[in-house]
């Protein structure tokens, strides 16, 4: 086994040096009746070339060469080439959580930089070192709102990503929460009218751009929440929108819980991605996840350390603000390198191009007979198209043309069976958009 340095002979002499002669003796601690006396049944080892062909054959069964307009929580954006060689430096990807700061300053500094940029993008005061993904970040936000308000009711926008919603349900089910869903109107956004908010309400959870791509009026929601002494939790699955839209913090959000995949992280069939979590200074001690802070040594040299860890499971145990330990460190680095490379201007330019390309596509599609936009609302790079026939059937026909049309919303929402959620990013050229539009015409 090429990953085991010591040769059989070396292992034998190590055994001898501790007074044993058979490796089995080391396992006498395990009662014989509990031992496995046959092979696992996984098979013989695969050599490197065999392994490569095995995985290449599997990969070939994933048709990533189709032109795709899928979004809905996972977005296709240009990924600068510099990211992979940098995150592939073994000093980064083969290191553990930076428990020993003197030997981990590289990791600690980039986390501090990551936290800073997430604050800048979200308009909030403090961000953590990442959570698993956008969906669990929202769940953690709800639990945090509960800790802060000691209230048990949450109002969740019906336009929150359905999978995020399901995760919140899973996490709150056992804690005696009352979860109520808020409908959406003809603009695909919340109707601020009768939210049914009350003194029992811990938080309102809104996603913007929401699952339908529509931009919510966050300031309005913040006012409503705060009037009732509740918190506003804002989520976004498409972090690129932060390059263009007023920041959640600026709109009055108390907690931001989102997904950073758009920042240089490959689609990779849904993960690993990078959960974002940010809030106000006053709430920092109720935050989940790791935090890195500035520190100095006895000679006054600046460095960084893991801090405020009394919130965490390894110290506070069952009273911890979360049970998270391993997070998405390397993918926070990806996002950090992405944001550093794109920079202020790059993020603005990409956001701008997403907006213009999506609006160009939307206007072209809405000119087609039988197609129109489901919602009148304002959107960023994603929108819902009403289709002349069942959306699923449209997709089937598009796929024959090697186009992955969009997400058919039947299944997600009753009465949306004839709706297609279409996403257009900077990676779609005008030519490919036009091709998509005429394909839609043909398949109708």
């Amino acid at each position, binding site marked *: 086994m090429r990953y085991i340095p010591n040769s059989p002979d070396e292992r034998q002499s190590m055994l001898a040096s501790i007074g044993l002669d058979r490796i089995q003796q080391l396992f006498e601690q395990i009662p014989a009746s509990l031992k496995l006396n046959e092979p696992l049944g996984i098979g013989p080892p695969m050599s490197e070339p065999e392994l490569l062909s095995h995985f290449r054959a599997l990969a070939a069964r994933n048709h990533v060469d189709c032109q795709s307009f899928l979004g809905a929580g996972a977005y296709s954006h240009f990924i600068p080439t510099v990211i992979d060689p940098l995150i592939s430096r073994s000093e980064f990807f083969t290191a553990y959580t930076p428990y020993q700061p003197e030997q981990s300053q590289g990791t600690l500094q980039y986390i501090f930089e990551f936290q800073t940029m997430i604050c800048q993008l979200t308009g909030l005061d403090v961000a953590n070192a990442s959570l698993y993904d956008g969906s669990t970040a929202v769940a953690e936000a709800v639990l945090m709102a509960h800790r802060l308000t000691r209230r048990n009711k949450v109002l969740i926008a019906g336009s929150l990503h359905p999978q995020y919603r399901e995760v919140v349900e899973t996490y709150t089910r056992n804690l*005696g929460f009352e979860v109520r869903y808020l409908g959406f109107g003809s603009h695909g956004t919340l109707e601020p009218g009768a939210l049914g908010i009350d003194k029992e309400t811990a938080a309102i959870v809104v996603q913007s751009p929401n699952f339908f791509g529509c931009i919510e009026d966050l300031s309005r929601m913040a006012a409503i929440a705060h009037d009732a002494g509740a918190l506003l939790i804002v989520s976004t699955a498409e972090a690129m929108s932060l390059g263009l839209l007023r920041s959640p913090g600026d709109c009055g959000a108390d907690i931001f819980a989102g997904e950073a995949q758009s920042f240089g992280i490959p689609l990779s069939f849904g993960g690993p991605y990078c959960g974002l979590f940010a809030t106000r200074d006053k709430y920092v001690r109720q935050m989940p996840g790791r935090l890195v802070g500035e520190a100095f040594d006895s000679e006054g040299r600046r460095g960084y350390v893991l801090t405020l860890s009394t919130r965490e499971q390894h110290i506070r145990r069952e009273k911890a603000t979360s049970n998270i330990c391993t997070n998405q460190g390397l993918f926070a680095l990806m996002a950090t390198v992405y944001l550093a490379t794109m920079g202020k201007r790059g993020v603005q330019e990409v956001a701008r191009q997403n907006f213009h390309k999506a609006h160009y596509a939307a206007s072209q599609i809405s000119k087609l007979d039988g197609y129109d936009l489901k919602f009148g609302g304002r959107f960023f790079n994603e929108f819902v198209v009403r289709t002349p026939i069942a959306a699923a059937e449209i997709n089937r026909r598009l796929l024959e043309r090697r186009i992955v049309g969009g997400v058919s919303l039947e299944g997600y929402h009753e009465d949306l069976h004839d709706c297609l959620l279409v996403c257009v990013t900077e990676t779609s050229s005008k030519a490919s958009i036009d091709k998509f539009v005429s394909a839609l015409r043909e398949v109708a």
Partner: protein
Amino acid sequence: MTSKIKKATTHVVQNESLLFEHSSGGRIGYSIPDLDVPETSLEESIGRDLLRTDDLDGMPELSEVDVVRHFTRLSSWNYCIDTGLYPLGSCTMKYNPRINERVARIDGFANLHPLAPAAIAQGALEIVYQLEECLRKITGLHAVTTEPAAGAQGETVGIMMIRALLSERGNPRKKVLIPDSAHGTNPASAAICGYMVETVPSDSEGLTDLNQLAVHMDEDVAAFMLTNPNTLGKFERNIRQICEIVHEKGGFVYMDGANMNALVGVARPASFGIDVMHLNLHKTFSTPHGGGGPGAGPVAVTAELEPFLPFPRIVRKPDGSLAVDFDRPKSVGRVRAFFGNFGVLVRALSYILTHGDPGLREATETAVLNANYLAHHLNDTYEVPYPGRVMHEVVFSDKRQARHGVRNLDISKRLIDYGFYPPTMSFPLIVNGALMVEPTETESREELDLFIDAMKSIDEEAAEDPELLKHAPHTTKVGRLDEVAAARKPVLRWTGK
């Protein structure tokens, strides 16, 4: 001072300030095609009120060169597995094979959208399916989900499933029992599932005290969470009786599988009688720790618990193709978006297929050998609070060195000067001044011997020159940082002030 130190020396490295301190208006690091569609008026279609007005104030402006140098310089301050022994107990810091990185980057995996129709994602579904098959064989349990993003989430899922089953039986119960030696995520996960946590003391050997367990175990207890081998590196040889005691009272046994590197191919947890467990792919199965993550914490369960697994499930259809199944009426629900940390799953499957049956067993045997080799050659020098054979790791204490006022922290910091990353110190809590050492199978004898020499030499220094240790490390870019001050007035972001 560093005369005794064979393994390491010092060399010039670059200083590097924060990205923001480098930033300069007008620097460009990105390159994308020009916009090729007619523009739409932002004001009209979005409106001033919803548009950003701060010009992304504070975000950096850098060239590609600035970025490459920045992160390359930062990296030179990190210790990593490729640097040398990384003996963090309970973390299984083993070599991360490069072939796994290569495989995970194949276009067909890296560029696949999670909502791509199953018809054009069969290869990805096969990966998930094949990995779950392998983990079933390794644990001996009935079914596996690879959804959980890390060990802690695996614990949450496992306990949620127990709660769901108990609820179906009419009473979710109130408590979860946890040994005093358990990892912090265990109680934290139980709490998230709405349980109170009760601690069960260990016996003099560091194992679960059966009598104590019997005393605590009653009809209010939903589950007992046990790590095996436990966090002292000991195999819980009474695991069968433990399971009986718990089962008798209608409770379930959750096994924390973080230490499976001691068991793969040698024993199957199913045969212990446990009900549910998680695995840490980023430990036992060598997926990179990435400076904090990502990981994956698949959960394996008995047939009884199978209906409660989170959705979606990947199922084989009669025609042999794979489908995504959401129709799981009893499921605890969804625990994260899409299909878990897929990229981590690819790497773990690559690791498992590379080893095959003989390789997996060989890895386990060697990991246990290496741990016992260290235990044997250091136990004259360092106190071993719970003596005797160990499995994959050994826990020392600073008891003897403490006589000179030298604590585990000082020993750890001094190890840095000797060219090592320090062991785990934060737990198990039952050991005062713990030094929890896990070498893994991917260490050479030279490296282990250098560690033994370093530890012995540090013990001598503790007697001769305790101050030297209390101010260690002496060879790093920054010395000991004042963590107390950092926590008192936390500075958690750059503000330019």
